[in-house]
Each structure stands twice: as C-alpha cells, then as structure tokens.
C-alpha cells in the first residue's frame, strides 16, 4: 500500500467535504470527516475487478474509489455533468464503470442489492469481489441479517464492511445493538469476521486485503467491522449531540493527523512533500468547484426522462 | 352389463382434466385393483383403478385429450362381446378407486 497516496486520498476527502460544507447551497449531505481511513483503507485493497456499494455516507467512499472530484462535486450540486446527470445526488451516486456500483440512501437498503450484484458476477464467472459499506445504524435492520444468511449459504463473493462510527444519528450503538462487537453478527452465520481500528488506515487496508483474498479463494463472504468516530453531526441538517469535551477527544483521533505523524516519524513524509500534497488537494478541490459551478443544471423536462 | 368410467370429482376446484395415459387398449381385461388410466388435474396425478373386473371396450378420450368432470372417458363391459350403446352417458358407472398423487 502506498502510504503517501493514502494520505493524499484522505486529505482530498477532508478538503473536498470542508469546501462543500462551506457553500450556502451545499444541500443535504452526510460527511465522512473522521472516517476517511475506512473509505481509503477499504478502497486501497480493491482492484478494477471489484465493485463497491455504500449507504448514504457516500462522498468519502466515492472519492476513495477514484471517481473524479469534478464529477462528484457536480453530482452533489445537482449539475447535469455529474455521473448521474445530477439526478442521484449524494444519496444515489453511481459509476459502475469505475467500480462504484453506487450509493443508496435507504439505511440497509443496499445490502440485498449488493448480494444480488455478487450473485450476478459470480454466476457470470467474473473475477473480483463486491463490497457493501454500511454503518452501525444498519445493523439492527432485518436486511443485514437476511443477507448474511443467504450470502453464507450461497457462498457469495461479498465483503460486508460495517463502518461503526458508534452513533446512529443520536443513538449510541450500545443502546441500539446487543452484540459485544458488531463483527459478532457474522459469526452466527459462520462467516469469517474481524474488527479493526477504523482510524488506522493501514489496519483497515490489511484487514480488507486479507478478507478480499479469502473471498477470492472461494471461502465465502466476510465481515469487517471498522470502529471509527465521526467529526461532524450525522448530516448537515442534524444537530450535534456530543458536548465540547467529547468532541475535543474525538477530533484528537484524526486519521489524517495519525498517518501524517507516523510518516513524518519514519521520514517518508517531509514538509516539502506535505506542502505539495496540500497544494494538489487544494487545486483539485478548487477545480472541482469551478467545474461544478460552470456546469448547467439538467433541463426541467429531465424530470420525466429515464423513468423506465 | 355396460359400464362407463367418467371423469371423477377429485377436488372442488377441478373442472377439467387431461388424460395422461391409458394402461390398456380396447379388448383388454382388467381385474379389480388394476390401474386403468392416469389423469392429470392442474395440481396432481390421479390414478384410476378398476373397482370391479371387466373388459375395456372403447376409449372415448385418448391420451393427451381433455375432458370435463362427469364426461365419459371409456366404456367397459362384463364380457368382451356385449354390444355397446350409441350413447355412452346411458351406461352405469364402473366401480373405480382413484388415488390422487
């Protein structure tokens, strides 16, 4: 894993979302601030043969998967130059040709879809795995339990990644979910399972890579719980539930600062390289904003096109 | 005595059946208990077995053909030479057992 590249990728997500949130027309967004290591760690273990599906917290994963910031910003701001002509937005962004089969805003709603994608690809003899990324909020839903069962029985090439940021809007995960560790949910179905520190991009990468290898060897589905902390409230419309002292402790866990410190200590990251990364990130974000702002909205009559 | 086999009422919603296979041809003797014909309903196979011995004289509904409940499927008689009536409906019913599979 190229750690400088991982740092770059996490910095891009952070800067992109910060710039987006600053706009008055940012729309209804779910941000990945603090959770960048989960997206980047998982995506760095994927190849062009794999497909990624997510829930509604899709911006970090989409960028980590390699979608161009220009296209992503356009889609988020409702412009026709987005991959879905601005009709999907954050909740439904999709670019299957880039290995990002798509987001779906229904909590837990993409889990059975991902299993279907895995079934199709496996029957089609296609290499690669399918990854479904969801939060702790989806772990109480019947959808997860039904699909864990069928994925095990049908030996689907499916990696369940639970980004456990420990809060479902306002509900702490321990108040909502019974298991000691969310990775225990998979054990009931005989599915190989692991829990890692979601703030450590290296740990996430290693666990995701190991799971992917096992799945490709035909061992069946796998489950990976990444424990993380989100830096913002659930969404741009949601009140923050945590107090100042708690937030200070959360922000101190920054995955970007952590990797930065580790790479600085090892000498791999110098002030020059860091400055260069910051420059690249700022330029990419500025370019994305300019592209989106210069792009038109879809025409009104697109309200009734591609209905089916 | 001339007898007829008619399409039995096997279930309340069965209106029409298809003859799957006759297990004998005209002139053949059947003893009680032997399988005479298999019928298909929309749901199940029905085995029609002779409830009395007799000679199959004329098949009225061939393999693969359809008949509604109550319609005569074949004529039987006690012996092989008794003359058959024009109207099969007039014959009395042959004793049969049927098994729904």
């Amino acid at each position: 894993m190229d750690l400088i590249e991982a740092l770059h990728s996490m910095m891009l997500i952070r800067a992109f979302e910060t710039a987006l949130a600053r706009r008055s027309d940012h729309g209804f967004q779910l941000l990945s601030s603090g959770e960048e290591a989960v997206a980047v760690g998982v995506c760095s273990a994927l190849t062009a043969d794999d497909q990624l599906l997510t829930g509604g917290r899709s911006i970090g994963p989409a960028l980590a998967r390699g979608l161009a910031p220009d296209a992503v910003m356009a889609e988020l701001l409702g412009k026709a130059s987005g991959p879905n002509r601005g009709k999907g937005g954050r909740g439904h962004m999709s670019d299957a040709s880039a290995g990002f089969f798509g987001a779906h805003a229904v909590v837990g709603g993409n889990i059975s879809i991902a299993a279907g994608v895995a079934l199709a690809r496996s029957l089609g003899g296609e290499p690669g795995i399918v990854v479904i990324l969801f939060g702790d909020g989806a772990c109480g839903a019947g959808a997860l339990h039904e699909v864990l069962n069928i994925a095990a029985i049908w030996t689907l090439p499916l990696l369940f990644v639970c980004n456990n940021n420990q809060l479902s809007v306002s509900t702490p995960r321990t108040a909502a979910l019974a298991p000691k560790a969310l990775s225990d949910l998979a054990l009931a179905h005989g599915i190989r399972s692991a829990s890692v520190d979601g703030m450590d991009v290296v740990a996430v990468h290693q666990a995701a890579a190991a799971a992917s290898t096992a799945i490709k060897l035909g061992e069946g589905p796998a489950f990976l719980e990444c424990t993380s902390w989100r830096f913002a409230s659930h969404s741009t419309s949601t009140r923050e539930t945590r107090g100042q002292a708690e937030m200070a402790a959360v922000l101190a866990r920054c995955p970007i600062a952590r990797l930065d410190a580790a790479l600085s200590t090892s000498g791999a990251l110098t002030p020059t390289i860091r400055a260069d990364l910051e420059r690249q990130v700022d330029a990419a974000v500025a370019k994305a904003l300019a592209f989106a702002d210069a792009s038109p909205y879809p025409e009104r009559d697109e309200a009734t096109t591609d209905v089916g | 005595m001339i007898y007829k086999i008619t399409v039995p009422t096997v279930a309340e919603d069965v209106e029409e059946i298809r003859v799957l296979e006759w297990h004998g041809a005209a002139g053949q003797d059947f003893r009680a208990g032997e399988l005479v014909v298999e019928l298909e309903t929309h749901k199940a196979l029905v085995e029609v077995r002779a409830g009395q011995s007799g000679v199959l004289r004329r098949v009225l509904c061939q393999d693969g053909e359809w008949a509604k409940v109550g319609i005569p499927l074949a004529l039987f008689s006690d012996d092989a030479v008794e003359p058959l009536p024009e109207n099969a409906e007039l014959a009395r019913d042959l004793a049969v057992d049927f098994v729904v599979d």
Partner: protein
Amino acid sequence: MSGEPAAATERLFFREAIGRALREEMRIDPRRIVMGQDVGAFGGSYREFEGLFAEFGASRVRDTPVAEAAMVGIGVGAAAAGLRPLVSVTYMDFIMLGLDPLVNYGAKLRYKTGGRLTAPVIVKTTSGARGQGVAHSQCVEAWLMSVPGLKVVAPSNPADAYGLMKAAFLEEGPIVYVDHKRLFPIPGEVPLAATVTPLGLAAVLRRGTDLTIVTHSFMTRTAMEAATAMSAQGVSCEVVDLRSLAPLDIATVSASVRRTGALLTLEEGQVTCGVGTEVAAQVQQRLGPIPVARVGALAAPVSSNPVLEAACLPDAPRVVSAAVALLGRRRSDAPRPVSRKS
C-alpha cells in the same frame, strides 16, 4: 378464455403455460434465472416451475429461505448487474416485504443513475382468496400501478399467462407479474408458436352494446359469467380484460365506453383507490362524465371462513345487481352526453 380452439394451439393448464414460457426463455438466454421458495425440485407451489430444476440445475433455479425482502433485493441487484432473474413471491400478501428493494431501488434505478443502470427483474406473485385466510388472500396490484418505473401485468388465461411472461422477459426494468390462485385449475388454448402478448394492450373478450365491464385476472371469469346472465335479461355487455395494469390501455377501454355509454369496473381487490378507480378517472378525463359503478371486495379482510369469504368477494350475481342499478340510473338521467355508435 374458453373460446373455440384456434388453429396451431395446444391446450394447457395455466401453470403449464407459465412453465412453457419460462423454459423457452431460459433456453434462449443463460442469464435468465428463477429464485424463490420451493421453486427447485418441488417445482413451485402450483407446479408452475416443474421441470426447470431438472433441466437448468441448482445454479439457475434457486430455492430460497423465507426472506422476501432479501430475495427481492437480490433479484433486483442481480438484474442491475446483468442477470435476468425472475423472483417468485408465492403469496402476493408478502410482496409487501419486498417493496423497499423493488420500489425504492428497482423502480428508481434508471432514474437515479441518470439512465446508466436498470434492473430488468420479474417479480412473479400469486394473488387471490381461496380459503387461506386474511393474510394469504390479498389482491394489491392497485398499490403498484402508480409507482413510476414499475410495470404490472395480470393474465386471466393460459394464453396470456404465456404471452405476458414472454413479454416480461423482454422488459428492461422491473415488472410485477400477478397471477391468481383460482386461475390455476383452468386450462386454455395457447399458441404453439412463440408469441408475445404486448404490454399496454387490453383484450375485448366479449362484444356488447349496453355496458362495458372492465376487469382483470380471475374476475374476468366472473365478468363473463355476469355478462351471460345479463344477456338472458336482454342486456348486452362488452367485457374488456385489461391484462396490463401499468401501462394501462385506456384507449381500448375509452373506445368501448364511448360505444356503450356506461362503465362497470370489477376487481377482487379493494374498491378504494383500486384499479377501477384509476380506469374510471382516466375514462372520464377522455369522455367527460359517464355513468360508472365500481365493484370490488367488501371493505374488510378476507377470512378463510367460507361464508365470510364468499360474502366479501364479488360474484356474478353481485356484478349483475350493480350493472342493473347502474343502467337504471343511466336511464333515469338526462340524455347521455356521448353519441352512441354501434
């Protein structure tokens, strides 16, 4: 329906017509698979999948656990990723469990991806009351007709059971195929040649001059029974079998009502917001005010109790009463606003 056998047809049970369409389609395209409870070696609750498991194997004919939400979702997702699945939901009552993936993802996929992905999935389900109780009897196809991006068909006879299943496999998006418990015992003629029943095309089953009865699924038989009874009373009914609920062939229905001057809609589902309500509204939009009666189940759950079930469901006598009342009202109204053409 049970008309004269046309040339080049074979008489099949309803289930055999479905099975024949599936066999033909699965032989053509290996992406076509079937998933559902008891569809494999068992051959389906109505034997409609008989023989498919033996011919195509466990990979393409998959038994599933009782988990409709997951199964519909997996069917939708597999379709989005290139398969052509048919998901069997044995009882229409339980399609409700699969509505999130079907409606929130499947029906919206083409739109939400700006046309880049679609989910060509068939959800086949059996509706109707036949002594199985309040949660195993429902006809809720009306709930599905208004979902943009979702198509709904309902054959009333083996020829259309075959033809609409063939049509369903040609669709590029999700389609719900609704058959009915009480249609399975009834055989009918099916063309020997591979035939597609077009979507959005109703069938006039009986020509008439005094009243148009618009119906679908099993109630088509009740409509024909009522029409026969009414002709003995000197009332000539035209019976239109919708076959396709979304898209809806309102042109055929309107043309009929323009000739007869009166509309009676008949369904086994609820009257409120039912299929008939939509048909009546659309016909009135085209023709202006016309006499309309809507007949459907009573506003109550349908119990397995034989007396109560029979009381709830429409039957020919109830249709006749409604028709007579409708025509009586029409005669006592001002002259009809549309001219009558034969």
